[in-house]
């Protein structure tokens, strides 16, 4: 498919259906997007100590994210340089060496080839230095670790640009403690990855798809989750990133600490007070425990979504894996982290009150998109953002505007036709 053909498939306010269904486009996306930009691979708390690791993916490529004994982070292709066996099949753990199970080549956490058994069988000029695990460029911003195959790409901080402000705000839900990954829900849906990418900036579906979640809340919380009715907005942050603010009152979790404690957090506040936490700290923790009032969508594969990280992993043109990472307060009160876990379970995961309905909706999109390859996916929804909300100069729309999706598809077009 030529660049001109691809360019024609994305217009400012719409995208053509084969973007969900064409296997050749998917193959091109894996090359031109996922091997060409910063892709989220781990949270720093996943590899908190020296010689710890976590396996992850950059598009279709399997990687090991490691912290070496000096504390430096590496992202290594999970493929032996001898005859290709995977060198690590654990999800997470500690290792000071990765030994390939096939012929025993061993690698250090920084990727260097340490030892080759029966080395005498190789010619004298065999140079171990040439056979380290393939190492991706890796950078971190405020706990978020990204890797890229593109060695000469701009620094991560530049790629994130104005999104950094929102990452910093998001991390305030540590309530004064560092943010820590507490566990993961993984699930797959039979649909294209961009359906999920869109969804993180889709407030429009919330009252309909998540009606049963809303019905399960107390009246006060139900008002908090009235996401269309609080003067929120969607803002294009450049490079395909966007933020959707649903609950403006919960943008900065360190503000408004004198406000009355919501009903559903009363018991927790009481418990923390009884444990001896001073009032100002109780208020800070309790305000942080429910998460932030916005979704930050980072192109192409991660979102900081209210109270968790949502990571997408393309599998096939019509299959996507989603990981919802529950997060909490590293070293914070156990009662607060327990509450965060129960809140996460309430909405997220394969049997949460929200996720299965999202997954079903996305599957229905993919099923519908089998018909009408010549029809457009419409992304033209939106009116002006409320006055004075968005950063001057940023394109923005009201909370249910499809501004964030348009931003992502313009980035898609830029990368796919570069």
């Amino acid at each position: 498919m030529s660049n001109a053909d691809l360019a024609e498939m994305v217009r400012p306010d719409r995208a053509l259906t084969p973007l969900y269904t064409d296997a050749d486009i998917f193959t091109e996306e894996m090359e031109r997007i996922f091997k060409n930009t910063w892709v989220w691979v781990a949270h720093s708390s996943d590899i908190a100590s020296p010689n710890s690791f976590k396996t992850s993916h950059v598009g279709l490529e399997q990687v090991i994210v490691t912290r070496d004994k000096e504390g430096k982070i590496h992202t290594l292709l999970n493929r032996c340089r001898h005859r290709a066996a995977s060198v690590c099949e654990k999800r997470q753990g500690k290792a000071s060496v990765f030994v390939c199970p096939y012929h025993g080549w061993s690698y250090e956490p920084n990727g260097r080839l340490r030892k080759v058994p029966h080395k005498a069988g190789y010619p004298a000029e065999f140079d171990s230095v040439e056979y380290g695990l393939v190492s991706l460029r890796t950078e971190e911003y405020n706990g978020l670790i990204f890797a890229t195959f593109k060695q000469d790409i701009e620094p991560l901080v530049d790629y994130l640009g104005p999104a950094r402000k929102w990452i910093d705000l998001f991390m305030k839900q540590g309530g004064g403690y560092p943010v820590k990954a507490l566990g993961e829900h993984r699930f797959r849906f039979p649909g294209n990855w961009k359906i999920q990418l869109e969804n993180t900036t889709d407030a429009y579906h919330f009252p309909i798809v998540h009606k049963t979640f809303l019905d399960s809340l107390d009246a006060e919380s139900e008002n908090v989750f009235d996401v269309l009715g609080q003067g929120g907005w969607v803002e294009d942050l450049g490079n395909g990133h966007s933020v959707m603010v649903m609950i403006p009152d919960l943008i900065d979790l360190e503000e408004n600490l004198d406000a009355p404690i919501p009903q559903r957090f009363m018991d927790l506040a009481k418990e923390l007070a009884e444990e001896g936490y001073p009032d100002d700290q109780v208020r800070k923790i309790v305000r942080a425990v429910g998460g932030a009032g916005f979704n930050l969508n980072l192109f192409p594969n991660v979102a900081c979504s209210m109270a968790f990280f949502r990571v997408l992993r393309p599998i096939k043109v019509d299959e996507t894996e989603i990981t919802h990472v529950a997060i909490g307060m590293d070293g914070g009160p156990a009662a607060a982290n327990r509450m965060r876990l129960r809140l996460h379970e309430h909405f997220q995961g394969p049997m949460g009150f929200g996720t299965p309905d999202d997954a079903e909706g996305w599957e229905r999109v993919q099923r519908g998109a089998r018909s009408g390859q010549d029809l457009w996916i419409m992304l033209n929804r939106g009116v002006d953002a409320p006055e004075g909300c968005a950063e001057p100069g940023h394109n923005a729309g009201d909370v249910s505007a499809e501004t964030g999706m348009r931003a992502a598809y313009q980035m898609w077009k830029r990368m796919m036709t570069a």
Partner: protein
Amino acid sequence: MTIMMDPDIASIDVPTLAEATAFIWAEADMLDRLDYKQWLPLWTENGRYIIPTERGIDDYDDRLNIVNDNAEMRAARVKRLLSGFSMSSAPPARTVRTVSRFVQLADDGGLTLRAAQIVAEYKYERMRILAADVVYRIVREDDGLKIDRKVVTLVNCDDYQHGIGYLL
């Protein structure tokens, strides 16, 4: 005047294996038929319904689970599944399940059992199999046997699932 129940006397009334398995089969049948209203009163007041994301653990409250329900959450879950407004459960996948390979574990006033559960689910042209180890604690109350604990550990609980719009 209150009569204190002697725990030794209470334990005399532990359900037998035959009673417990018949009860568990009846529960399985109820779940396949989506008879969730009848299912709720099968539980003790403090009963816990847990579907973990890790194998080989016994502390569930400080970990992330797929389900960790007390009575209130179970009732909310049933309300949601029967509401007709949840697109993943209106209708849900059809299911047919068997529970078998019972092993008696403990008798501590109730009967704790380990069993295998195989669920076949069908929706949208496709069949999926969900296999799980299940641990039940069954106790006898005045109005019959009750589930005091049910932990459904999927064989692939630490890997990806698909949306599940019914009860396991």
